[in-house]
Structures are given as C-alpha cells and as structure tokens.
C-alpha cells in the first residue's frame, strides 16, 4: 500500500522479495545496497540468525529520485524463505505494492520454488490481494551455477501469469537492478491507474 504525502511531496512504495530458503533474496538487497550512492540509501537492516539466514526481514530504504516533483522512495523487504517462518512472511506481505519472486535455478530446488510460489499465492490471497493483478516479476537466480534448469522449464512452471521474468546472478549483481527496475515500473504504472 503506497503512501502519498502531499505535505512533504513524497511517495513511498513497498516491495517484497519472496522465494524459497537460500534462493538469494538477501543477496539481491546487499548488492543494491553496495551499489547505491550514500545519499540515495538508508541503513540496511537485517534481522538474521547467527548463520545469516533471514529470521524476520531485511529492510533497505531507497530514494530513487523525483517524479513530477515527488520524491520517490522504495522500501525493499525480504522475507525469511525457510518453510517454518510462514507467520513472519504473512506479516511482511502486509501493505505490499509489488512482489519479486526470486527462484533458485538449481535443479534440486525445483520443488522448493513451486512450494514457495504456492505459499506466496496463499498468503497474498489471505491478505485480500488479487494475485492476478498485483505488480509481480520473477527472477531466475543463480544462473552462474552448472546444475540449473532451463529458463523454458522454469518459466513454464512458475510464470503462469506471463509477468516480466529476468535471469540473474545476485552474487555478481547481474540482473539485480534490472529486476528492481522491472518491479518499480509495474508499481508506478499501477499508481498511475490510481491503484
């Protein structure tokens, strides 16, 4: 749920990175954080376990610039991917404006991707979102690894809605900003329609 502030001439949007455990959600945010100029970013907050698994969420506030005299801010969140953190995932989805589904391209994570996507749909529906309409993009991550499924295969299974889909290697940053841009575009276009 975006927040339009006429008093400070700002617009805030919330984007959530979703996906199975270890698919690279936190890595996406870390790359964005590292490559963004000081003046355009706030502190990145990671509520994580001692082994760096996300426990509650990562949070990264970005100020991208102005559109029509309004400062455009994006608040990026990741959810914890591990199955048993479902209660936390539901909380983080509240008020979301756009979702990035980060899929792990490795063959052995095929089922985990499907399970996580189903879980996303359930949780969005439970929050009253129309899963056919919410701004949504899919990132096929870890394309650098040898044991990956083909894009055709992944797309056929995960991308029923035919939303924008991007290949990425979050570790090197390939595709990371392209993904953010794709979802930001959908979110802003959605605002344009008054959503």
């Amino acid at each position, binding site marked *: *749920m*975006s*927040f*339009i*502030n*006429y*008093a*400070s001439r700002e*617009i*805030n949007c*919330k984007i959530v990175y979703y996906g199975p455990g270890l698919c690279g959600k936190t890595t996406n945010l870390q790359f964005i954080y590292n490559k963004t100029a000081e003046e355009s970013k*706030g*502190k990145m*907050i990671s*509520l994580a376990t001692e082994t760096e698994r996300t426990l*509650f*969420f990562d*949070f990264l*506030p970005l100020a*991208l*610039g102005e*559109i*029509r*005299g*309004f400062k*455009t801010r994006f*608040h990026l969140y990741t959810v914890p991917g591990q199955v048993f953190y479902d*209660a*936390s995932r*539901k*909380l*983080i989805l*509240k*008020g979301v404006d756009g979702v990035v589904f980060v899929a792990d391209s490795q063959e052995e994570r095929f089922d985990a991707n499907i399970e996580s996507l189903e879980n996303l749909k359930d949780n969005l529906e439970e*929050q*009253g*979102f*129309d899963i056919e309409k919410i701004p949504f993009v899919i990132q096929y991550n870890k394309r650098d690894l040898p044991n990956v499924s083909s894009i055709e295969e992944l797309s056929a299974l995960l991308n029923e809605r035919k939303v924008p889909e991007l290949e990425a290697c979050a570790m090197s940053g390939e595709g990371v*900003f392209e993904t953010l*841009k794709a979802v*930001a*575009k959908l979110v*802003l*276009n959605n*605002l*344009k329609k*008054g*959503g």
Partner: protein
Amino acid sequence: MLGPQSSLVMYDEEYQRILVLLEKLLRESNSKVIFLVDKNGQLIAATGETAHLDTTSLASLTAGNIAATGGLAKLIGEKEFSILFHEGEKDNIHISIVGGRVILVVIFDQRSSLGLVRLRVKKASIDLGTVFQELVDKTEQEAISGNAPSPFAEITDDDIDNLFN
C-alpha cells in the same frame, strides 16, 4: 477504514494538524522524541530530538515489532496488544496503536514517567484518531469525485527510466 490495496494519502492541512498534536504531546509528556508510523512501516511524522535518530529504520522496526506482537496476540486469542513498552537504562519506548492503523511512538527518559506518558498518550490518541478518520474520509471523497487526480496520472516510461540513471 482503508482496504489493503488503497493508498494512504497525507495532505498539507492534516499534516500540520498532526504535527501540532505531536508537539503538544511532546511538551505535556516531557518526552524526547515522538513519531507516527503507518502500520506498514512508513514514517508519517516526527517531532522532538530527531536529528541523531535514524527515523526510517525506527519506523520499519516499530512496524515489525507491532506486527510480530499482533501475530502473538492472535495466537493466544487476543485482538492485538494495543500498548507496548520497552524499558532501557536511560531511554524508554512507549508504543501504541491509534485508530486501528497508525502507530504512535514516544521515547522518554527519567525526566518523564510511564504513568505520565500513558495518560498524555491516551488523550492525544483521541485527537489523532479524529484527524486520521477525517483523512480517510477526505481521501475517499477525492477518489470518488476525481477532483484531485493522482500526481502520477501522467507519468511516462521515460520518467521511470530516469529514476534509475
């Protein structure tokens, strides 16, 4: 109340009224910092000694905190815990929910007390609740009348591309 997909909108007039109420609460409760956060973690307004504070992070963590305790409340059959209090060595945080959807955060030290903060927050919440209800009504009316088109009604793909340069 707004549905999950509608935007929260803040106008100049209401923003000024909210600031006045927050400043009054700051004075009357002898506290250090007060801020208002949307349940989704977006900062609405802040007053007091905010210069050295990372208010964006504070807002996000406060909302996470309220969301998590709200989840706990549901598990034990409560609707929500409407007040949270964290006691530190020097500073304390009092968090409460106003009008069901905004979070009021008061940071205070030994110059004030939990009792005083509680009392003043209770009073201020009523006034703040009124302003937010009016804000919701106003937003709905503007949406119906179409008088105030969204500033984003005319954005182009180029505008969006430019954000990333």
